[in-house]
């Protein structure tokens, strides 16, 4: 029987040839992921050697490997400033991008991300509340109060999304609309807090609304690193089910995927990743949106590749943005949130204008 051949295509390939072609494609995808990993390492090194103090690239890299090669003040710069700063950039980029990738799939919406669905805004509000009210809890160090409160609010906002998503009959559109409502509500509340707050509190609030890596500590690095290490394997275990969800909710369910549970677990991972990141560095926009889209353009939506590639793309963009934030105006440290937004907006526009092409 004759199937219509594609225009210009080779005459009917055999099953073995198609399999071989497919395996080459998979090989190419693995190579792309490996390439992204290398690019990440390079960007991390670039971020590490960029900075205002008079250290050469060789000194910095040498100091990371053997701290004894540096004078104590130099070692302090490398180990207490550069390294945690560069590491938190990688981790935040990875975490937000992975969160964005999972959100986009489970909400079936390419514009979903922790930033566009209000998780970051909720965290900002939580931070603002802690800063302005100056509350403290017993047993909790004062400088952890702000991130903790930010985390609580971010987690709460995801649980609210969760509640909507699991309500019977609520479509994913409802969830997205609720997320947008959250953005506006929390942004308004943050503005209100700024309006009533003292001069000193206002400065701290500005840090939050712009997003900055400059307060990163080793404690932050460890916590976020552990969260990422804990969450990523579960994401990868769900990769096959996430891919099948892209074929439609009914179809995935008929293939035996409990979509409600998949969504619940994914949102749980998203809330951990996004809330922890935002708690430490403030609102950094667009990474959660742009990272997964870059990965999708490079590799398609087989989540075995999409998820790791999203992690790497997020880390890569964030490292580059971090390096750029130190280099754009020499001697001035720009809040990295500003730089990522400058990188992110054109990509965002590109994606929006590309969408109607789909029939």
């Amino acid at each position, binding site marked *: 029987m004759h199937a219509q051949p594609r225009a210009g295509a080779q005459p009917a390939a055999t099953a073995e040839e198609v399999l071989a072609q497919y395996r080459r494609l998979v090989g190419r995808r693995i190579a792309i992921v490996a390439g992204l990993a290398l690019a990440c390492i390079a960007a991390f090194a670039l971020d590490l050697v960029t900075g205002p103090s008079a250290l050469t690239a060789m000194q910095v890299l040498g100091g990371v490997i053997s701290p004894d090669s540096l004078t104590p003040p130099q070692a302090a710069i490398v180990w207490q400033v550069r390294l945690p700063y560069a590491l938190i950039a990688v981790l935040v980029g990875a975490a937000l991008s992975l969160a964005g990738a999972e959100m986009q799939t489970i909400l079936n919406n390419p514009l979903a991300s922790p930033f566009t669905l209000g998780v970051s805004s909720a965290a900002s509000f939580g931070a603002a509340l802690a800063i302005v009210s100056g509350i403290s809890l017993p047993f909790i160090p004062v400088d952890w109060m702000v991130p903790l409160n930010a985390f609580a609010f971010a987690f709460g906002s995801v649980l609210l999304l969760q509640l909507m998503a699991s309500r019977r009959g609520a479509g994913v559109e409802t969830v997205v609309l609720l997320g947008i409502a959250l953005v506006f509500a929390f942004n308004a509340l943050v503005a209100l807090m700024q309006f009533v707050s003292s001069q000193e509190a206002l400065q701290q609030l500005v840090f939050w609304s712009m997003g900055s890596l400059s307060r990163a500590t080793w404690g932050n690095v460890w916590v976020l690193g552990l969260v990422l290490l804990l969450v990523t394997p579960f994401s990868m275990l769900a990769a096959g*089910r996430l891919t099948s969800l892209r074929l439609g909710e009914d179809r995935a369910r008929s293939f035996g995927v409990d979509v409600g549970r998949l969504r619940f677990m994914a949102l749980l991972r998203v809330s951990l990743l996004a809330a922890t990141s935002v708690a430490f560095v403030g609102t950094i926009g667009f990474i959660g949106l742009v990272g997964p889209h870059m990965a999708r353009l490079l590799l398609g939506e087989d989540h075995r590749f999409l998820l790791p590639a999203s992690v790497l793309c997020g880390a890569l963009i964030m490292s580059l943005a971090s390096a750029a934030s130190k280099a754009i105006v020499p001697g001035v440290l720009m809040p990295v949130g500003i730089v990522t937004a400058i990188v992110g907006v054109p990509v965002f526009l590109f994606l929006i204008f590309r969408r109607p092409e789909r029939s």
Partner: protein
Amino acid sequence: MEATAVREDSLQVSHLSTGYSDRKVIQDLDLPVFRAGEVHSLVGPNAAGKSTLMRALAGLQKATGSVRLGGQELIGLSLAEHARRVTYMPQTLPQGVALSVLESLVAALRASAIGERSESHDAAERRAVAVLERVGILHLALEGLDHLSGGQRQLVSLAQALAREPRVLLLDEPISALDLHHQLRVMRLVHDLARERGMIVLMVLHDLQIAARWSDGIVMLSRGAVSATGKPAEAITPEALARVYGVQARVEHCSRGGLQIMVDDVVTADAM
């Protein structure tokens, strides 16, 4: 494709009720027994409840009553348990998905265990390619889902369901977007697979001519209730067509077997 042992199960649906929160669509429905290796067609006007019934049989929707496959009651089983036995092909395939045809089939196979089988990636890829070959779309294997024509998408959607080799295959309008050649090709394929594997097939069709030619039995659904059932020649009669579809039609029995259905006009109020 390797031969699978022919099974002797049958599907029995009785006292089935299902619907949506605000609307009961199907109440206390009994269907004739579907035997292994048979192809049955579910026909009826728009909004009769065909898709709703299929979704209930697939376990995608709350239902009460009984759906027995062999000795096993399906209602109340988890999605994963359902998916070991039953596969449902929905009416549509979503747009804007960056997956290739072959990847989508592998995803369908790997989503959950089928029967006793949970496949490795390698085995799933081989099975997927074999199914594409059988459906006749091997040349589309590496094409993106988003670059396909409407009919090609429907063939891919069918291939995803066939790949799982279920004991019960539920197809919701599998040929509505296909050209003449592919309509017949799909009907022949589904018919042959049912016979080879002892699979039970229930498909929603709007083309009565094709339904009559390729089905062992017809279920005509109207407003959520069975209006006519039996062998094609028994179920598709001028009276049933007038009652269910509101059309004046003649049904001729051809000398070569099969039915010839000629629809002349819609029934006017006074003719009813």
